[in-house]
C-alpha cells in the first residue's frame, strides 16, 4: 500500500479526476450562465473541446524563458494543492501528500502559482498583462484576509492546523464545521468569491478592458496548460471547502454533490453581478467578509 508506485498512481488518478471534474464544472457554469441570460448555451462538454482545440494548435510564440515557466508554475501550484488536500475521508485513497503539510503550507502553495504565472505574464512585455497582474495581486491581498481569518478561527477552535485532523474531528463528532463554526464558513465563502475570480471580481482578466490581462500573450499550449491548471485548482479548492466545512466525503459521488453545491455559490453570485473595480473589490473583502472573519475568531476564542 505504501509503495511509491501506488502513491504515484493515486496522484495520477486524482489529477485525472480533478481535471475532468473541474472541466465539467466550468462547462456547467458556462451553461448555467447562458441559461440565466436566456440563452441556450454551449454543451456542458464545451470546455473539453476548447482544451482539445488549444492543445491541437500547431504554432506558438514565447517571449522568453519565464513565459515557459509561468504556466508550469501555475500547474505546480494546482497539483501541489491537490496533493496536499485530502480528497476523500479515509486516508487510503488519494492520500497523496496530505500528511506532509498543513493549512498554512497550503495557503502558501496556493499563491505560488499565481505569482509564477505573474512572472510569465510579466516577461511577455504586454502592458495589459502587467496591469492584470497588479490587479490580481491586489485583489488577492483583499480576499486573503477573510480567508485567513476563517482558517485561523478553525485552527484555534480545534487546536490543529492539519486538514486531516479537522476532517477527523468532523467525522468523530458527527457535526460539520459549517454548523459548529458558521461565521468562519461565511467568511470563507465570501473570500471564495474572490478566489474563483468570477464576476464581480473578474477585473483581473477582463477581456474587453485588458484583453484578458495576464493571458493576453498566451495561446495554444500555454493557454491549454493554464486552463487545465485552473480546472484542477478549482476542484482542489472546492474539495478543500468540503473537507473543512462539509465534513469531507467518503466517496466520490458524495464529493461531487458537495463540491457542486459549493461551486454554485460563486457561479450564481457571479451571473447576476456586474464588475467591481479593483479597489472596490478590495474594500468589499475588507468589509463584511472581514467582519465575519473577526466574528469567527471571537466565536472560536470564547465558545
Amino acid at each position, binding site marked *: 500500500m505504501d509503495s511509491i508506485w501506488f502513491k504515484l498512481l493515486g496522484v495520477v488518478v486524482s489529477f485525472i479526476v480533478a481535471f475532468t471534474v473541474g472541466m465539467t464544472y466550468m462547462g456547467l457554469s*458556462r451553461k448555467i450562465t*447562458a441559461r440565466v*441570460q*436566456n*440563452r*441556450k*448555451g*454551449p*454543451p456542458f462538454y*464545451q470546455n473539453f*473541446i*476548447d482544451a*482539445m*482545440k488549444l492543445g*491541437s*494548435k*500547431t*504554432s*506558438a*510564440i514565447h517571449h522568453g524563458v519565464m513565459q515557459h515557466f509561468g504556466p508550469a508554475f501555475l500547474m505546480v501550484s494546482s497539483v501541489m494543492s491537490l496533493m496536499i488536500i485530502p480528497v476523500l475521508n479515509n486516508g487510503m485513497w488519494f492520500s497523496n501528500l496530505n500528511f506532509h503539510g498543513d493549512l498554512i503550507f497550503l495557503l502558501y502553495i496556493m499563491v505560488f502559482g499565481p505569482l509564477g504565472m505573474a512572472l510569465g505574464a510579466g516577461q511577455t512585455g504586454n502592458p495589459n498583462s502587467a496591469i492584470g497582474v497588479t490587479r490580481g495581486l491586489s485583489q488577492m491581498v483583499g480576499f486573503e484576509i477573510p480567508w485567513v481569518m476563517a482558517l485561523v478561527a478553525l485552527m484555534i477552535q480545534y487546536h490543529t492546523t492539519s486538514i486531516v485532523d479537522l476532517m477527523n474531528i468532523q467525522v468523530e463528532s458527527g457535526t460539520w464545521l459549517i454548523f459548529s463554526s458558521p461565521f468562519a464558513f461565511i467568511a470563507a465563502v465570501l473570500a471564495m468569491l474572490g478566489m474563483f475570480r468570477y464576476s464581480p471580481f473578474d477585473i483581473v*482578466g477582463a*477581456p*474587453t478592458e*485588458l*484583453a*484578458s490581462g495576464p*493571458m*493576453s*500573450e*498566451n*495561446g*495554444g499550449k500555454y*493557454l491549454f496548460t493554464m486552463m487545465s491548471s485552473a480546472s484542477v485548482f478549482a476542484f482542489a479548492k472546492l474539495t478543500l471547502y468540503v473537507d473543512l466545512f462539509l465534513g469531507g466525503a467518503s466517496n466520490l459521488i458524495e464529493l461531487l454533490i458537495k463540491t457542486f453545491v459549493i461551486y454554485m455559490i460563486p457561479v450564481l453570485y457571479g451571473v447576476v453581478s456586474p464588475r467591481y473595480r479593483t479597489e472596490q473589490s478590495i474594500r468589499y473583502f475588507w468589509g463584511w467578509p472581514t467582519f465575519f472573519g473577526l466574528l469567527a475568531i471571537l466565536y472560536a476564542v470564547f465558545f
Partner: protein
Amino acid sequence: MINDKNSQKIVDFIQNWARKHSIWVLAYGTGCGAIEIPPTMTSRYDAERLGVRGAATPRQADVLLITGYLTTKTLKRVIRVYEQMQDPKYVIGFGSCTINGGMYYDSYNTIKVLDKYLPVDVYINGCMPRPEAVLSGFAKLQELIAQGKANGAQKYKDNLDWYRENQKKIIPNWVMPEYNW
C-alpha cells in the same frame, strides 16, 4: 511520433472536430458591421451554442472576423493582427465592403478586395449581413474546417511573397516584424 497515415487521419479528424466546435473569434470591428456582432453573440441568436466565442487577443483567437471596409491605415493593423494569430487560423470577410469595396468602391483610401491581402476563408455578403447570415457563415466555416479545406493560413504561408507585394503596394512604409512560420 504518429507517422502512420491512417492514424494521422484519425488524429486529423479529431482535431478538426475540436477546431470546428471551438471557434474563438477576434472581431476586428471596422465599419458598420461591428454592430451586428452583439446580437449574434447574445441571447437572441446565441452563437456560443455553436462553440463560437469571443477571444480577447489575437494570440488566443482562431478566426479573424473583419466586419467592414478597411482603410489602408486599418489594413496595416489587420495584417499585423492576422500574423500574430496562431495556426490554424481563419479569416472571415464580412459584408460587401470586404468583397468588392461596396459603397466605398471609389474611395481614395479604402481597399476593395480583401482576399488580395489576406487569405479569406469565408465571405459573408450583404450590406450589412444579418446575424442569421453571420451564423450561416460560421456554419460554412465549420463545414470547411471539418473537411480540412479551411487552409487559408497555409495559402498565406505558401504565397507569402505575392501577399506581401500586394500589401506593400499600398503600405509603402513597412515596419513589421518578419513573418516566418
